[in-house]
C-alpha cells in the first residue's frame, strides 16, 4: 500500500520534470516537441502508468530508486548523501531528548510544587507554542552570530579532506551541536509533561508506601518504583515522536543549511522531481517505521505484558 501511495501521488503533481529539463524559452515548437519526447523516453515517462508502476516495483526490489532529472544524479546516490545526516541529527536528538526529559520529569514529580518544578512545567508548556524553526533561529542568532561559538551553516567544513580523522570528527560534532540543541528542546516538552504526570500518578500508590516502609533509599524508590511506572507510556510517546522529529529535523536543517532528506524533499517538491519525491517519502516512512519497531521491541523488554497481548 505504501508503495502504491508513494508511486501515484507525485504523478499528479502540477508541472512536470521534463518541462524543467527542456528549456522551452525561445526554441522552435518542433524542436521542443522532439526534445520532450526524447527526455520522456529516457526517463521512461512515455510508458502507460501500470507499466511505469511495474518498473518502479522491479527497480525498488533491486534497490534502484530511479534517476533525478533535476539533480542529474541517481536518487539512490542523492539519498546516500543525505540519509546519514538526517539519521545522525534525528537519532542524537531523539535519544538526548528522551534521556533528559525522562530524568527531569521524574525529578520534577519527586519535588512537585517546588519553584524548579513549576518553572520547568510552565516552560515546557510554553515550548509547545514555539515552532521548531523559531527555536533554531534563536540558537543560530545567539550561539553562531552573537557569540561565535559554533559554525552557522552546513554539516562539515568544506575542503578538509586531508585533515586528520580526529579533526573531522570534531568538525562534524561542532556543526551538529546547534541543530541537535534546537531539535532536542523542541522534542522535550511533551515527553517531560508525560513523565511528570505518570510519575505523579505512581506516587500515591500503595506499593510506594510499602517500599518506603521497607526503608529503601530514596534514590532506589525514585528509579525503581516511581519512575518505572512512567516508562511504558513514555516509550509509546517516543515512538509517536519519531515522525514528528522528522518534520522538526526538516525545519532545523533548513534553518542551518544542514544536509538531509527533508531539505532534499523540499527541493524536489519545488522542482516537481517525481523520482526524488518518491525516494524521500519512502525513506522517511521506512525510517519512522523502523524506529517504531525498535521502540516496540524495547517496550516488550520493559514490560512483558505488552508482548503477551
Amino acid at each position: 500500500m505504501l508503495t502504491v501511495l508513494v508511486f501515484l501521488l507525485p504523478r499528479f503533481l502540477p508541472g512536470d520534470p521534463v518541462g524543467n529539463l527542456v528549456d522551452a524559452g525561445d526554441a522552435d515548437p518542433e524542436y521542443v516537441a522532439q526534445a520532450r519526447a526524447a527526455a520522456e523516453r529516457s526517463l521512461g515517462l512515455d510508458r502507460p502508468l501500470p507499466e511505469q508502476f511495474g518498473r518502479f516495483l522491479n527497480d525498488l526490489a533491486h534497490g534502484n530508486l530511479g534517476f533525478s532529472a533535476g539533480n542529474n544524479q541517481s536518487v539512490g546516490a542523492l539519498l546516500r548523501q543525505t540519509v546519514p545526516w538526517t539519521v545522525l541529527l534525528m537519532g542524537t536528538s531523539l535519544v538526548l531528548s528522551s534521556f533528559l526529559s525522562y530524568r527531569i520529569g521524574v525529578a520534577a514529580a519527586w519535588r512537585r510544587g517546588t519553584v524548579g518544578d513549576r518553572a520547568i512545567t510552565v516552560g515546557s508548556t510554553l515550548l509547545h507554542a514555539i515552532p521548531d524553526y523559531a527555536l533554531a533561529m534563536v540558537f543560530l542568532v545567539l550561539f553562531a552570530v552573537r557569540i561565535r561559538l559554533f559554525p552557522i551553516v552546513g554539516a562539515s567544513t568544506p575542503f578538509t579532506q586531508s585533515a586528520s580523522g580526529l579533526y573531522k570528527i570534531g568538525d562534524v560534532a561542532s556543526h551538529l551541536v546547534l541543530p541537535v540543541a534546537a531539535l532536542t528542546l523542541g522534542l522535550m516538552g511533551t515527553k517531560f509533561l508525560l513523565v511528570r504526570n505518570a510519575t505523579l500518578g505512581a506516587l500515591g500508590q500503595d506499593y510506594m508506601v510499602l517500599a518506603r516502609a521497607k526503608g529503601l533509599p530514596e534514590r532506589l524508590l525514585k528509579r525503581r518504583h516511581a519512575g518505572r511506572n512512567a516508562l511504558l507510556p513514555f516509550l509509546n510517546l517516543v515512538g509517536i515522536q519519531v515522525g514528528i522529529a522528522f518534520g522538526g529535523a526538516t525545519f532545523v536543517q533548513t534553518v542551518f543549511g544542514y544536509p538531509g532528506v527533508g531539505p532534499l524533499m523540499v527541493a524536489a517538491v519545488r522542482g516537481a522531481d517525481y523520482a526524488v519525491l518518491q525516494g524521500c517519502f519512502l525513506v522517511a516512512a521506512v525510517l519512522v517505521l523502523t524506529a517504531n519497531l525498535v521502540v516496540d521491541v524495547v517496550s516488550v523488554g520493559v514490560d512483558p505484558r505488552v508482548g503477551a497481548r
Partner: protein
Amino acid sequence: MAGRASGAQPHRRPVPLIGWVGAFLVLGFVVLGLIGPSVAPYGSKELAAPRQERPSDRHLLGTNKVGQDLLSQLIVGTRSSLLVAALAAAGAVTIATVVGLAAGLAGGWPDVILMRVADVTIALPRLPLLMLLGAVVGTSLIRVALVIAVVFWPGAARVLRSQVRSLRRRSHVVAARGFGAGPLRVARLHLLPEMSLVVVTVFLSAASRAVLLEAGLAFLGVGDPSRVSWGSIIRDARASPGLFYTTFWTWWILPPVVAIVLVLLGLMFLGMGFETRVNPRLSRDGALHR
C-alpha cells in the same frame, strides 16, 4: 451546547483564569483577521516605500525587499493564517466525528477497518505526507486546509471513538436504543451533546497545529507563493542572505514568529480551560498535588 453537556456533571466548574486569557488572545486575533485589510495602513502587496526600509513613523515595522509595508503584511496575513487553521480544524473534527461515531457505534469489521486506516495514517511521517499531498492537490488556502485535515483526523477520531464506546453502554443510551431509536437519532440526541466538549478541545488542538503547519509550509517555500501569510513573511526574510548578521531580523522575522506563538498560546490556554470542564479530575488532581 455547553449547557447540555454539563447536565452530565453535577457541578459546573468555573472556567479557570487561563481559559479567559486564551479566549482573550484568540478573540483578539480573530477580530484582527476579520477587520485586518481595512485597518492595515497599506495594501499587503502594495509597493509602499523604497525597499528595505528601517522601522519609521510611516512604516512601523519597516519594509521588505520590494518595498512592501511589513506591518500591513502582518495584519493582513492574520486572516489567511487563521482561516487555514479554522478550516483545517473544522475538516479534521468533522471527519473524526463521523469516523468516531461510525466506528464506535457499529463495532465489528467497520470499526476494525476504520481504525486500521487511522493507524496507518498516524504511522506515516506527517510533514513529508503533507508536502507530498500539498504538491499534488495544490497550495491554495482551501486545499492546504483540506490536506492538513486529511493528515490530522486520525488522532481525534481515536479519542472520539473510545468516548462513543464508553457512552454507548451507559443506561440512558441503552434505554433509548431499546425504545427503538436508530443509530443516527442516538448519535444526535445522546452522544453528540456529551461529546461536544471533547470535540471543542480536539478542534482547538487541531487548529493550533494547523497554524503551525501552514506557516511551516510557507516557511519551507512549498506553500502558495502569492498568498500573504505569517509564514510567507518569514520565508521572504530568510531568503535574504546574511540576515542574522544585521538587525533587520528583529522587525522582519520576529513579529510574525511572535504572532504565531501568541495564537498557539491562546488556543492552548483556551483548550486547558475547556479541559478542566471536560475532565474535572484534572483540576482536582492539580489541587491535590499542590
